[in-house]
């Protein structure tokens, strides 16, 4: 007497299952992925992401993120940067549309891990870039994080400007980008040596600014127009002065500022004055202030390290725990009176400078593209006006003339172990001579300086 199952119902059931399955697979899922997926992008696809667990919180993600961000702000006031980073990670997971948190997070990760002497920990930069990339995937419709990513390359890494250009271009594709911020692309093109593109960019933006000003005579539009006008002026003058136009036309560079190339006369000596404390001394025959020579001390076998830098773009996911057993120190050596002398104390930050490996490399690197304009006027955008008898190098950077020198130290030397307990380790370039600048007056020095323009008159 049990109920009999109607075959019609069963058929309806099966049909229903097929229809819903087909709808889900054929129509809904794709659109859902494009439009509504809370964890947009591919970055989280390598593991079961926290995003999915947090999805449980449903609509309260944004408010939770907001509360955490307020908390992070109070840590910031206390200078407790270590506590902020996990919060930033959590907030961006909870609310991947919090652009400000991404931007601030990149800045924290990239800049604020420092040693006692305010050198930032460059091992974190790949993670800072990764956070930015993640942000752009979550927020593809606004320019901000594309711009931030470019800025990280332009300002923090201050090298490999092609990447800055790449991200600034992506930012420009977004319609919401502020006009004033677009100007930076022109600057970035200068630093890649693509002067024609820089000039084109400035012309294009200048045209736009004229239209904008015609539409609305606001102060900001007025100011933007004036800035672009100035930039364009400078660029055109420089392009002529630095021989760029002549070079393009196939004319000889005689008579232009960049000719003949000037010998910077680089030499360096590194002295391990105390365990983990190194003094860098050396020469650089450029008198005008504004020279910063990059000095890097790193494991000889540091993965991906070459040419005085790391593989900055190595990561796609954020890792707030860089390898604890690898050392990478980067410092700027400022030149004054044709000499530099800098003591780098790494003894107070054993986590940042663990020195666990046996062999270390010291790299010295100078790139005219990062130089201030008054020095660039002589050296050119790509080092055409610069040379060095011993260390001019055209390999470590493509299409550029840079100064690059390396020295080596051992762990025992840096830590003053073994035979080096009483002996002071010194590594120096063959051309390094003990200076007599202590005896001479500054005026004497100036007299000995060769003319930047002609390269003669010195020594």
């Amino acid at each position, binding site marked *: 007497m049990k109920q009999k199952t109607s075959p019609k119902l069963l058929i309806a059931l099966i049909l*229903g299952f097929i229809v819903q399955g087909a709808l889900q697979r054929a129509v809904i899922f794709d659109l859902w992925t494009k439009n*509504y997926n809370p964890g947009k992008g591919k970055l989280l696809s390598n593991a079961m992401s926290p995003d999915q667990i947090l999805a449980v919180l449903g609509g309260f993600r944004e408010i939770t993120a907001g509360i955490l961000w307020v908390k992070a702000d109070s840590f910031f006031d206390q200078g407790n940067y270590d506590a902020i980073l996990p919060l930033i990670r959590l907030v961006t997971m909870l609310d991947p*549309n919090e652009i400000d948190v991404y931007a601030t997070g990149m800045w924290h990760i990239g800049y604020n891990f420092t040693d006692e002497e305010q050198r930032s920990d460059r091992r974190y930069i790949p993670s800072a870039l990764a956070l930015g990339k993640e942000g752009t995937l979550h927020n593809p419709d606004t320019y901000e994080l594309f711009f931030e990513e470019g800025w990280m390359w332009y300002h923090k890494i201050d090298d490999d400007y092609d990447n800055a250009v790449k991200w600034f271009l992506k930012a420009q594709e977004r319609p919401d980008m502020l006009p004033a911020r677009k100007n930076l692309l022109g600057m970035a093109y200068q630093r890649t040596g693509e002067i024609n593109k820089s000039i084109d960019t400035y012309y294009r933006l200048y045209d736009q600014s004229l239209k904008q000003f015609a539409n609305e005579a606001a102060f900001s539009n007025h100011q933007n127009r004036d800035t672009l006008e100035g930039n364009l002026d400078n660029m055109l003058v420089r392009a002529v002065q630095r021989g760029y136009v002549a070079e393009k036309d196939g004319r000889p560079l005689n008579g232009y500022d960049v000719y003949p190339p000037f010998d910077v006369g680089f030499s360096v000596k590194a002295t391990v004055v105390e365990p983990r404390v190194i003094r860098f001394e050396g020469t650089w025959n450029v008198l005008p202030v504004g020279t910063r020579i990059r000095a890097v001390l790193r494991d000889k076998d540091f993965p991906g390290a070459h040419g005085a830098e790391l593989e900055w773009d190595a990561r796609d996911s954020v890792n707030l725990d860089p390898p604890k057993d690898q050392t990478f120190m980067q410092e700027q050596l400022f030149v004054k009176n044709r000499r530099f002398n800098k003591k780098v104390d790494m003894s107070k930050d054993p986590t940042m400078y663990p020195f666990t490996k046996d062999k270390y490399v010291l790299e010295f690197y100078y790139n005219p593209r990062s130089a201030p304009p008054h020095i660039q006027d002589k050296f050119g955008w790509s080092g055409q006006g610069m040379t060095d008898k011993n260390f001019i190098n055209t390999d470590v950077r493509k299409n550029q003339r840079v100064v690059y020198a390396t020295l080596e130290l051992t762990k025992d030397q840096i830590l003053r172990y073994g035979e080096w307990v009483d002996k002071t380790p010194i590594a120096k370039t063959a051309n390094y001579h003990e200076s007599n600048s202590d005896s001479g007056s500054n005026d004497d020095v100036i007299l000995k300086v060769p003319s930047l323009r002609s390269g003669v008159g010195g020594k």
Partner: protein
Amino acid sequence: MRPILSIAATTVGEAIRRRVLLVILLIGVLFIVVAPGLGILSARSETTVLRAFMLGVIQGVSMIIAVILTVYMIPNEIERRTIYTILSKPVQRWQFLVGKYLGAVLSLLLMMSMMSAVMGVMFFLQQQSKNPGEIADLLKGPAMYFIQMCLLAAVGIFFSTFLPPLVNFFLSIGVFLVGTFFNPLFQTLQENKNTAPMVKLIAQGVNTFLPNFANYNVQNPIINPTQQIQNEGRYFLGVTVYGVVYISILLIIGILIFDRREV
């Protein structure tokens, strides 16, 4: 049809008098009313948090209402023996079940409309918005949630034909949660090259056959209006048809079970 409608109307009458539901509804409305004050908690623009919070409250409260409303539906009728007087009348069991479900849906419609209306008013007051399109855009959220909750109610009714309320409560919420975050998980599995093909196949099967609640979580572009949406109409139509079909499936299985059930 008449018995179905009568049962549905009675169910609504009962639902709107249940204190638990009213208290939950009241809490929800209260949260929506105080929502504008929570803007200060955010580093972001107040509207973003306001939208997120209001939509979150509506979804959460509706979910709890949908579950509480349905898990007791059949067990209570049996316990109070009201079902006997009804089934001894010329009422088929499927009519009873469908009537009950329809009642749940109407109750949800009533309660969710109320919360949405309050949300609309609060948003209007907060924003002084002169653009009615903005509020209409905001209301797309609750509209989709409504279908989501209808689906959840069908799950609850389906389980209540053979499970006691407490078990059903956790099971229904469990199905909701799984159905909500299975989509992101599924996408993750699909895109991960390291996923074993077997796991992919299983995931595909589960994603195809489990009720998919994530489809109705359309709040992201509403909260972040800079996002661009493609084929919105087609999507909404798709998920609505999906919901109706899936609800029918659940009700049919529910009826098959309920028909055999000794009450």
